[in-house]
């Protein structure tokens, strides 16, 4: 029986590799596929970190809530700062 998490990890790696190849060739879609691949593997990283540290078995909350809040704030701040720098927010 194949490990389903290994399958998910391989899917993430394949998406990232395709994205990086397209990006290197300056082809359309490279940036978005790279983003999907990175976030996919980030998710798998979260899963493996939670599994090996025993978070899933010892109680998910409030650790998951805290990570959720951090993700929300960091994501929002980074994108808003980028939009501010590129002039999107000044329109």
């Amino acid at each position: 029986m194949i490990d389903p998490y290994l399958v998910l990890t391989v899917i993430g790696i394949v998406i990232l590799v395709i994205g990086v190849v397209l990006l290197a060739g300056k082809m359309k879609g490279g940036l978005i596929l790279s983003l999907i691949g990175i976030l996919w593997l980030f998710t798998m990283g979260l899963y493996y970190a939670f599994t090996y540290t025993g978070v899933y078995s010892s109680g998910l909350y409030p650790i998951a809530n805290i990570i959720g809040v951090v993700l929300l704030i960091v994501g929002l701040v980074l994108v808003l700062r980028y939009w501010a720098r590129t002039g999107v927010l000044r329109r």
Partner: protein
Amino acid sequence: MMASKSVSSALWIIAFIIAVIFVVFIFYIGFDILTKGLDKPGEWIITQPFNVLVGYEIVGTDGAFLVSGVLWVVGTIIFFMELSGRTFKGFRIVRQEIKWDAIDVSTTALSAAVYGGALAATGGIPIIPGFTWVRPGNALAPLFGILFGIPGALGTSIGNFIADALAGYLGVGSIGGFIGNFIIAYVPYKLMRDHSFRTPRSIIEFYVWGVLVASVWCSLYISWWLDALQPVIGLPRGFIWGFFAPWVIFNNAFITAIVTPILGFILYPPIKARGLYWADRIRIIG
């Protein structure tokens, strides 16, 4: 002048009545679940259509699996078609040009971080006492589709994937959730004609497409995937069609019907003014 004003008022009244009917109906379903008990999903009103569908055998399979299978195939084709740069215009398939530049990619990243973060941030917390399952984050999925189009819908997919890991549900089933959440954002994006939340038409369209159709389609999409991969995932069919499917419909529709129109009304003008609204960023060819 007077006639058009009275027609406009009448349309607003109709839109308001439709919105109230939707919200009251969803609260009624919630009340029905609470009074019958969370441990008796087979008795809930929202489960009854699934009981009927599962009971009918059509061409060698049961009705729920067949109907959901059709929606699954259509949803999957749409997902890959849209990402490959094709879309529907009426009943025709035409090419569309999404730039996928830094702005589109950052929009996807923003949608993923905010949606995934919001779902995880409120996981297991009873926002309303006794209602641990109410996730305000669910309201963002149709909103990101309506405002940002395909980049927002894709961000919703990724956000749900991240939230699955943070909730302990990550698995092969999450692939179904990935496209299922894309559909929640895609349906109102594609099928609403007015995304402003400022006209009676916009409000009525939102409740029909964004609340009803999107919630049902998403639920059936994921449920079919869980059923089809039952030997791998291991969820019993009775759980999938007797609890999971109706629960996902209710859970999505509940918060979406109440919160999304308010957020949409507030966020539409600044998003549109800054050129981030999807219709100002894509080009339909043909």
